């Protein structure tokens, strides 16, 4: 039985979540990954959305981070000042999900502009809560499809800091969180090495290292012993297709 790259991406991200963790959730694959984890190995996962819903248990697939289904039946609804100060800056968020138009060699993410800030060729939405999630979440997971344009040597604009910004390591800049520990792509998993540079760490079934390098804009280095990522289980595929995203809003490709 086949599966789409998106389905495997959701499964791989879900496997990164431990039961009982507090996760700052985004819409799309991160939301599917969290709800898949809740339905399988992490029933005690606490989902927080930047809109202020804590312990959300959406009865339908939320199409926005402020979907009313995130409120109904949640454990707590608080204002956004509490979300960013009492939860995020307070250090209560264990995992934050990030994604973006550009991710560079050091895990920096750009969701602001392609080109120059003043006269951009493409104006992207901007930070939202991403800048502070990148600073404060104990660790972040980046979910994004590989492409040379999407994984440049250096991003045009650092919206969310990774492991090394303009040569300076994040510890030196006093960031509480550990930064991006894994980049979950459609072909493989990238992880930072001790210097903070993203390297190839695990391959999806049927993928060769060169397939991955073709989608990265810098000379991607590999770990000596590459891990092999297991395909989605029968149960995971069933949960994703028939339960979490029956209309395949986010699982298409």
């Amino acid at each position, binding site marked *: 039985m086949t599966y789409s790259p998106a389905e495997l991406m959701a499964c791989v991200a879900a496997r990164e979540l431990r039961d009982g963790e507090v996760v700052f959730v985004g*819409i*799309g694959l991160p939301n599917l990954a969290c709800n898949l984890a809740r339905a399988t190995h992490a029933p005690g996962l606490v989902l927080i959305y*930047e*809109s*202020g*819903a804590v312990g959300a248990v959406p009865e339908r697939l939320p*199409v*926005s*981070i*402020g*979907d*009313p289904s995130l*409120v*109904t039946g949640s454990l707590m*609804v*608080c*204002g*956004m*000042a509490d979300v*960013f*100060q009492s939860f*995020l*800056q307070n250090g209560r968020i264990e995992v934050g999900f990030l994604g973006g138009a550009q991710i560079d060699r050091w895990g*920096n993410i750009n969701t*602001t502009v392609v*080109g120059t*800030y003043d*006269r*951009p*060729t*493409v*104006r*992207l*939405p*901007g*930070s*939202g*809560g*991403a*800048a*502070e999630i*990148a*600073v*404060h979440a104990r660790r972040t997971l980046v979910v994004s499809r590989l492409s040379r344009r999407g994984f440049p040597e250096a991003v045009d*604009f*650092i*919206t*969310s*800091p990774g492991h090394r*910004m303009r040569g*300076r390591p*994040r510890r030196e*800049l*006093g*960031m*509480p969180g550990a930064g991006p520990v894994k980049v979950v792509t459609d072909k493989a998993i990238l992880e930072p090495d001790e210097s903070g540079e993203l390297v190839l760490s695990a391959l999806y079934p049927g993928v060769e290292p060169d397939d991955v390098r073709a989608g990265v804009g810098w000379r991607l280095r590999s770990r000596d012993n590459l891990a092999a990522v297991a395909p989605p289980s029968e149960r995971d595929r069933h949960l994703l297709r028939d339960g979490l995203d029956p209309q395949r809003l986010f699982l298409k490709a």
Partner: protein
Amino acid sequence: MSKVTSMTSAIASHVRDGDTLVIEGFTHLICFAAGHEIIRQRKRDLTLCRLTPDLIYDQMIAAGCAKKLVFSWAGNPGAGSLHAFRRAVEQDGGGPLELEEYSHFGMVGRLSAGAARLPFWTMRNYMGTDLPAVNPLIRSVICPYTGEALATVPALNPDVTIVHAQRADADGNTQIWGLLGVQKEAAFASRRVIVVVEELVDQSVIRADPNRTIIPGMIVDAVVVEPWGAHPSFAQGYYDRDNAFYVGWEAISRDPAALERYLDEFVHGVGDRAGYVRKCGGLERLRASSRVCAGVNYGY
């Protein structure tokens, strides 16, 4: 005395050309009704502030109301781009729209400082990002106890804030449940406040559950009763988010002519919100199901 008035007179008397305007509501309770009336009254040179400009500011930018945008995330949630905004900003676009950009936390801090009438707000943020490089208003302060540097943002004190809510009394005592966003901070930070509600209720309803009151009447200038006033966004307990409209906006806003037609038909083409609802063919399909919680005891 009652502060209840029509949307037309509330906008006419409280929103002026050149004002700094906040229509808040984070995905929930976004007051499209007020935005449309501002477009109809052809207000100009507004500095529009919102965490998420959303479709409402995309429409107001397209209609020529905006001089400047102060924001933190300018996308069409889960559905694409705000193309009027992009055309006003991108290289090959018409422009010019002035931008002042923060992150969500930064905007929340700006309104928190404004509500507390402090000149700035402090946060541990922005290290390593390029945001301070393009926004000189993101600065820093030295902690008088630890000596460390922390980021600051300046207070935002709008001329007018418009907040949509589930219910209020005639004095403007306003209750909101579900997502609260930064409505409370925006209202307290503002010089003038317009509250738009789904339901006008007797003050006894407010007094029966005072912990639900988010905005006290003493800071409210006008109360407008406008059912369905937040469509296509939602009002918890009243109606659902119209996701099809958000998805459909991608095609409309991408084409300036289509956007122009939309404004002609659904904004200028209708006299008021009731006309808009009729034009939409009614919105009953979005009516909320009933999930009423139990009350609590305020006795002693």
